[in-house]
């Protein structure tokens, strides 16, 4: 009986097990169970012992000074290239808000005037290389206002007729026009830019229209995926919009945006799509047309031109400006000197820094090292 109490070894395992179970309570589970002699020995792996192979970047003079020099040189190279590339781009822009009485559109700037047209004339003394892009620009127009941005209904715009009857609340207060749901609803659509432009080359007293290409000015994904017209009813888009009202500010309903091209109506109107893509900054430009056809595919030849504007969009009320821009583009977009300059400046800064460090380093370290 007595011997059963302390058998030399066998019982220990039993004791251990029980003890560990006990420890688990008294220690809040913090202690690990003890099974064998070295059960608690941690694994000797690179990870647990924190010996993972690592690369130590050393910010020492020997690396830093040449490094800075190389970066500086590369940047200056890029900067020069960008600068030159940007300089070859031609831009022609003209404000047509008509604030001053001597500007062509002064008369149209009166908001009470309807269907006013004015024209700006300009002369090209140098060939304007194609493809030429025609932009309209607005200043002080906050398309990036938070509430303005929310004020649209993507489901409606994707042609879901359920939202034709009950537009999303986000469109408020441009949801209903005297009880009839507005399609497209919301402030964004409501405020759509509705000036239109026509470009003529003045060839010996006659106006030769420059063909403006309105195809493909919007994002491909917007035109093909995001925005969809509602299914046609009896083959008619207008019927599909039955029971809806046009946005308050619009002169014509959505299905009549482009009378010249029936396929460019409704939500598939490219001008509409361009407008609905909100500009990032309060001074922005938006692509209006491209000049890619006929005699002007290679650009605008030297000569006199007239830009006819049907002036509809009021901006003076909120201190805005309107302008029209003709520009060609390079591989890196429109004319913008800034990036080239930035590269140049930062490149030079790097070189200056490396020189400064070299001088300080030489001054403080070399004498000691030599001695």
């Amino acid at each position, binding site marked *: 009986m007595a011997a059963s109490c302390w058998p030399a070894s066998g019982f220990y395992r039993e004791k251990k097990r029980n003890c560990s179970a006990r420890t688990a309570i008294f220690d809040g589970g913090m202690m690990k169970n003890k099974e064998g002699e070295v059960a608690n020995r941690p694994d000797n792996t690179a990870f647990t012992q924190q010996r993972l192979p690592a690369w130590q970047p050393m*910010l020492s003079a020997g690396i830093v000074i040449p490094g800075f020099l190389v970066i500086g040189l590369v940047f200056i190279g890029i900067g020069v290239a960008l600068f030159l590339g940007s300089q070859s781009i031609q831009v022609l822009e003209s404000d047509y808000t008509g604030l001053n009485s001597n500007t062509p559109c002064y008369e149209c700037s009166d908001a009470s005037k309807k269907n006013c047209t004015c024209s700006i004339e300009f002369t090209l003394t140098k060939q304007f290389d194609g493809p030429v892009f025609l932009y309209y620009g607005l200043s002080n127009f906050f398309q990036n206002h938070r509430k*303005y941005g929310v004020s649209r209904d993507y489901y409606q715009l994707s042609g879901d007729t359920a939202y034709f009857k009950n537009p999303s609340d986000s469109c408020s207060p441009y949801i209903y026009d005297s009880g009839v749901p507005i399609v497209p609803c919301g402030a964004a659509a409501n405020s759509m830019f509705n000036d239109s432009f026509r470009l003529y080359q003045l060839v010996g007293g006659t106006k030769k229209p420059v063909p403006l290409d309105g195809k493909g000015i919007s994002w491909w994904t917007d035109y093909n995926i995001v925005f969809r017209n509602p299914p046609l009813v009896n083959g008619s888009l207008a019927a599909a919009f039955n029971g809806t009202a046009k946005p308050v500010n619009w002169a014509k309903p959505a299905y009549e945006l482009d009378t010249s091209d029936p396929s460019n109506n409704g939500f598939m109107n490219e001008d509409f799509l361009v407008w609905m893509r909100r500009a990032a900054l309060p001074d922005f430009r938006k692509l209006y047309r491209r000049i890619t056809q006929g005699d002007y595919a290679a650009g605008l030849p030297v000569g006199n031109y007239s830009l006819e504007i049907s002036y509809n969009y009021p901006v003076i009320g909120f201190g805005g400006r309107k302008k029209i821009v003709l520009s060609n583009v390079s591989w890196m977009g429109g004319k913008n000197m800034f990036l080239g300059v*930035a590269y140049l400046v930062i490149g030079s800064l790097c070189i200056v820094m490396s020189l400064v460090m070299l001088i300080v380093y030489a001054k403080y370290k070399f004498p000691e090292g030599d001695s």
Partner: protein
Amino acid sequence: MARQAEETGAKGSDAKKQKKKKSKKESKTRTVRANILYDRAKGEENPNRHYASNKIKTTKYTLLSFLPKNLFEQFHRFANVYFVFIALLNFVPVVNAFQPELALAPVVFILSVTAIKDLWEDYRRHRSDKEINHMDCLVYNRNERRYMEKYWKEVRVGDFIRLRCNEILPADVLLLSSSDPDGLCHIETATLDGETNLKQRQVVRSFIDLDCEFDPSKYNSVIECEKPNNDLNRFRGYIIHRSGRRDGLYKVNLLLRGCTIRNTEEAVGIVIYAGHETKAMLNNNGPRYKRSRLERQMNVDVFWCVIILLVMCLFSATGHGLWMFQYGDKRPVFDVLSPEGTGLSPVLSAIYLFLTMIIVFQVLIPISLFVSIEIVKICQVYFIHQDVDLYDEETDSHLQCRALNITEDLGQMQYIFSDKTGTLTDNKMVFRRCTVAGVEYSHDANAKRLAMYQEVDSEEEECTSHGGTLPRRESVGSHQSSKVVLRSHSTKSHRRTGSRAEAKRASILSKHTAFSSPMEKDITPDPQLMDKVNEGATQMEFMRFHSQPLSQLPSDLSDIIDFFIALTICNTVVVSSPNQPRQKVRLKSPVKTIEDFIKRFTPSRLTSGSNSSSLSSLVTNRSSSNRGCSSILSSPSAESTLTKLNEERLQTGRGTSPGLLEHAFSPVPTTTLRYEAESPDEAALVYAARAYKCSLVGRLPDQVTMELPHLGKLSFELLHTIGFDSTRKRMSVVVRHPLTDQITVYTKGADSVVMDLIRPPTDDTKGKRQKKILYKTQHYLNLYAADGLRTLCIAKKVLSKEEYAGWLRRHLEAETAIHSREELLFESALRLETNLHLLGATGIEDRLQDGVPETIASLRKAGLQIWVLTGDKQETAINIAYACRLLEPEEELITLNAESQDACAMLLEETTTSSSTAPFLVHRLGLVIDGRTLAYALDKSLEDKFLAVARSCRSVLCCRSTPLQKSMVVKLVRNKLKVMTLAIGDGANDVSMIQVADVGVGISGQEGMQAVMASDFALPRFRYLQKLLLVHGHWCYSRLANMILYFFYKNAMFVALIFWYQFYCGFSGSPMIDQWYLIFFNLMFSAFPQLITGTLDKDVSAETLQELPQLYMSGQNSEEYKPYMFWMNMIDAFYQSLICFFIPYFAYADSDVDLFTWGTPITTLALFTILLHLGIETKTWVREHTLVILFFAVALGYNASCPTCYSPSNPYWTMQRLLGDPLFYLLCLVTPLAAVLPRYFYRACQGSLFPSPVQVGRQLDKLPPDTRRNLLSLNRMKVGSLSSLSGEPSDFYRNV
């Protein structure tokens, strides 16, 4: 006597009870009746039904309550409330900034991460609970009339439980019966306090001497005891028998849940406390939560972030108001009116906007920081746990982090307060030398043997590995003794280098026996002393044989014999053998009845002898009190008398039979006996005595049996054991000497107290001799202390019958006293321990742990102030301090020993002036102060002066300090000097100090688990402190500090981008960054890389950190995270955001870019910048860092595939178009570079021109190992300041 105690106790508690009746009786006591009496009355009338069942549930939640309860708990954290507030704000249409559902995402994410963590922990608890609840035990079943197996959880208060050997107690059980003939039961309390020695528990007195087996069905007593409390060392109550008699119940009657029954075949008890009301469960507190210094600092900066946020919001709101105001009544087409079609007033819209901005800028308050810190800390704890260098093979234990959230504090320690015994030393006591009757026995052979332990490691290792099994202790002993001849190495060596084989064996053995590695057990006796012992014993044997009075023995020989008797019996060592439950070395069969007694002993023997009359009067005195009791009780004193008589009979028997005498010489199988001592000193002394053939063979509550050479076994009737306490600093046993029949007191204690209690020598020759002995002993004691040995004095006193009777009367009164029983017993002890006769003194060595001097040296190099607070005497402490290089020989020692407050003040004054006159000596001072002076110095009026002196010293040593003083010193330093303190200790006396310090470290050593339980970190050995602080502490601190700063930076940088944009969107709260990016920026895009860096970054390698402890100072001075750094980071963030905002702004000026095609590059650039910034701040790029890039690619892809739905932004195909745009790439190249240029320049300058020590360390890492080693050794030569260090390696660097 005991009966008296009970009665008075019962009376006292009666009185108490009456008192309580007046107030609330129920609230103070608990009444337990046996359940079996109430089985039929299903619960209704069972008086125990209100008590907690034994089912434990440590889980916090149930399936149903989890969600509400967990959420409720999480909302106690202010940050969570804030985030929920913001998320809810989003549901208010006027102010909402994002899709409301989306805004909920981060807070839901964070809440759910925490919830999952909690759930997992809870599940683990649940599983362990279940396992424990379903353990089996035997419970008495009334119907079956036998014990039946039941689950633990079914045990109820009032159940009878039968326990077998090695079973774990399921509940707190009152011991009613034990298979042990003396009604004892042994338990191992390792799971409660970690003490591995066995503790004796006694059957309730009235049940001790039941003739037959205890029958639960006959039990019908009622137990009244105190309410459940968590004091493990206290239990009071009484049991009321049917006869109306009351018996006191004490701690010794209670078996605690969680303990293991040992050495006892069977025990039966009644459950008193069950389940959560058991003392073990009440003692179970979870891990502690402290707030680290870094976090406190961080919280200040979080507060600043809030201020910045509010300022930014206010600014935006004002801006928006003004913007609205400029339009006046004319509403522009892009201004969206309220749903009613009316415009808001500028003021109102400004107020709305303020709220909107809080939502938009919410990222500024680092939402994921708290979660990230928690994750990083868990990883850090994991790594510390996993460090194989902090694993101790001997004990198979590794470092435990008990506090999970102060890892980084380890890197900022400035002061270390260390206990000495068990912390710096092994607390493995080895008997080294002794002096008896003024003659010193140096035990040279033993010293040599001890030295051997250092040398024979390798051989032993082989021997163990070959043997496979545990080598016999004897064989090892001989193995070593053969070596002794060959080697004679310095005996002065205090430390032993790590010996794995020995350690391993020790650990195996320690499972059998506490405190008994072979080192302690195998003591080579001093031949001279051995001879004297033999001679003394032979003479005594001769005298006894010839019935001569023993007083004729020469006094030096009798002193020697007494000395060894004292060593052997003056302790509480329990004897057991490995093969039996407990070897009851009894020379008699239990005598149960008086008739039996008469039958076996002749009356003449009983009455013969000079002292028997007083003895019998004593006995009658006791039995008279017994008389009124029920017949089941017998007098313990009668039994002890029998022991004595029995002994005498045996002696006479032996006298007639020489064969028996022979037997005394035959080697008693002492090696199979195991000694279980409460303190290692005791064990060491008992083993020492055994080496002289004076071995303890058995201990019962009323009798100690020892074996002497020639004399054979002697049983001492143990009258009293007056235990050790830290005030008296001594213990005594009162025994009846079997040979002289005198009542003898043996006292063992600290020399300082015992020497004062020695009877002043008289003037005769004997007195002169005494004086000489005293003088010599004192001399040797000083020598021992100077050698760093722990000294103990052994003394004895012979009491005359009258003296004893007089003392006994008052002692019994004290024992039975209800009020201030402890004080009375203390006084009683003081009365007894006077006029002692000095026998001798012992010197016990407490060896230094491995690597202590090295650890202390390197910790000190790391700029840590190390104070040692010990209870040891001054000389011992100073010596150990020298041994562990806390004090250096060239240091000047200031010793403060003052007798009074004024003297202390003067001393301090003096020291201050002297140290100020010699300022260049300042760092070469060591301060030693003793407990009494410390008490004066800690007084309010002197504490500043004391601190001033202490600060000017390189090391401080406080001796003779009490636990309270220890904690007061720590508190003083911590509060007055505003420094980070670490306290390290191993014993219960260090607990208060550990709790007071910023970081408490417990050594899981010999003295139980109290220190570990109170600590934040538990180390197996002191030397691991070095790596824990220098490496892990440094890493944890620098990682976390960098991470926190980085979090502030990146959030500020990101938010600032949006802030700049407000100037271009009419302060309308419109972000150009897609709301998804904005919301998930913090959670995903930037957090992951940072988490990896936060857990894996190493600024300097572990090797270098340990070789150059100076690097630790960067943490002490908070160099990674100083308050100004927050603002530097903020400025940098604003600068970087300006770059990241305006470069794209100008680059895209005059283009037809739309909002998100413009915003996405900014996001991208910002992320690049942030990652580049991280790259600069990251010291090592682990392979895992490439994940960052991978993750970034995933982010881009996610963006690209986003469908047409996300209302305000609709980022469809944005990224694809961007990726086709060369401008985007050009931007990505130049912007991040421009943004991080200043910081990079600063870092580069710093790294190459003015490297900080840490950077130097990093450069050293890059060098090939050989060069590095050379440089480091070079550097070590120069006891150098950091400036010289930082100067040199740059040169090294250049040369390389």
